[in-house]
């Protein structure tokens, strides 16, 4: 447990995060904060721990040390007195409802239509009536520009369309926080724009977003904060102007010189 005070006004407060996979120490004491409504981009070379950090936020990975709080709630654990207890699986599932996640490889459910992909969790997890879930799903699909694809199966869609459905699927749970794990890395270059457009719209609507990305242009234009990670630690963070245009650290400079 960290001794630092808990700031209830933050959407995300991750303190002292350590995570290893076997002998590989991926996260080495990461502190990370995101205010409500803020769009944060995580940049860094492959293997720097960006995706792992993101996956720790919704407990897809269990942290080895440190704490993650989302909107003030400890993720994956509860405290009683001085003791920390692990939460049972269904409690973790409950916490994840409020955290949407979009994956690099879309991970749409291939055996369901686009509409079923979007309505599955609201009906089964939240118990929303089918008609209401359907109506909401159609609104969301219209918002990502895919209302006419409601009856299609994922395999019939392009990568960009699949990723937009995946965003609609996550939004259907009405999350307070959206995590994007390299959402455009698996896309053909000409399809990247349509996905970034949807994300831009979300940011404009005030959604709190954390985006692991290699799209420096997107980071510069949309993000409020850029966090640069390397070798499992946060090297520097600040506004896009600070980090991208005037990096203070040699590692940031050398990374940016390669990707720009």
């Amino acid at each position: 447990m960290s001794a630092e005070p808990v700031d209830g006004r933050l959407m995300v407060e991750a303190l002292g995060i350590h995570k290893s996979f076997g002998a590989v120490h991926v996260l080495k004491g990461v502190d990370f904060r995101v205010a409500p409504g803020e769009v944060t981009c995580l940049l860094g070379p492959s293997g720097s721990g960006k995706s792992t950090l993101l996956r720790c936020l919704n407990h897809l990975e269990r942290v080895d040390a440190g704490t993650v709080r989302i909107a003030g709630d400890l993720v994956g654990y509860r405290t009683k007195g001085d003791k920390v207890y692990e939460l049972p699986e269904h409690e973790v599932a409950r916490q994840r409802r409020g955290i949407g996640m979009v994956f690099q490889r879309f991970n749409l459910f291939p055996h369901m239509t686009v509409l079923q992909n979007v309505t599955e969790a609201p009906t089964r997890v939240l118990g929303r009536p089918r008609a209401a879930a359907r109506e909401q799903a159609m609104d969301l699909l219209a918002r990502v520009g895919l209302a006419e694809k409601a009856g299609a199966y994922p395999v019939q869609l392009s990568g960009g369309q699949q990723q937009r459905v995946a965003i609609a699927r996550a939004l259907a749970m009405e999350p307070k926080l959206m995590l994007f794990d390299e959402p455009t890395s698996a896309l053909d270059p000409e399809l990247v724009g349509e996905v970034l457009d949807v994300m831009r719209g979300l940011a404009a609507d005030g959604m709190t977003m954390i985006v692991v990305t290699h799209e420096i242009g997107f980071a510069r234009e949309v993000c409020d904060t850029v966090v640069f990670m390397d070798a499992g630690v946060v090297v520097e963070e600040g506004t896009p102007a600070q980090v991208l245009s005037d990096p203070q650290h040699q590692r940031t400079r050398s990374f940016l010189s390669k990707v720009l």
Partner: protein
Amino acid sequence: MTAPPTPAAAAGAPARAPKAVPVRHYGQWVAAAVCFVLLALLVRAVATNDAIQWDAIRSRIFFAAILDGLVTTIWLTVASMVLGVLGGVLVAVMRLSDNLLLRTLSGGFLWLFRGTPVLVQILLWFNLALFFPQLGLGSFSVSTNDVITPFTAALLALTLNEAAYMSEIVRGGILAVDPGQREAAEALGMTRGLTLRRIVLPQAMRVIIPPTGNELVTLLKTTSLVAVIGAGDLLTQAQQVGATDFTRLEMLIVASVWYLVLTTIASYGQMLLERRFLRGSGHAGRPSALRRIATDLRPGRNRAAGAVPPAVPPAVPSSEERGAR
């Protein structure tokens, strides 16, 4: 070849094939002729064998006792298959659980029931009363011999054995589903149970169905083992009839004919199921031998290879149409 064959050409349809004389497989025709002659000799040897009373076979194939046995065999197969699949799913999920107790229990189950011959298991269940004359908990107790009839002993043995084998098939199917699917479901707040039911198992079916059809055919034949405890199945009945009027061999042929009928039906059902579940996954079936010969002998086949292309493409059904027949 200057151009790769089109899918249509690969399937034997000449419509858009390049102008080339197809490779002639003379060796195949010679081999086919040799096989045909040998097969004909074998059929003649069996058909003209004086030791086999063909009249007896013809007259006994629809005996009431045989049809009774047939019903018992079907019932035993279906019941132990359904229970075996359900048990197999349960054991597979236990094997993949995080819970050490469940993993150990299911591993032990598999070790025991897959590791002993099903014939021995049938005999053990049938003789259960030798170790446990009474079955029950506390004050509730029944005589083992009342519960364990030959049929229930057979059903128990076959079901448990089938559950052990099915669990490995189901486990393979579950493991074949992309882990990203589970993560996506859990990120949406679905519990593990819900994820398994709604996301993982439906996708695992594609991998589970083909070997399950195979299991059904195997199980159908394995039921004949219960003849050792006289469970009233097809083989039991056939042997009983054969023992009474000295038509032992004939009755074995009668039983074989019925087993062939059943396995043929089961194989056909498996093919239909597979076609349904593998649809769109790029595993197109190959045409059967008869179908290929029919296509090869179709007039006009070689015209596509000749100098003058046909004005109208020959009416060869597309692979989809052929599959639907």
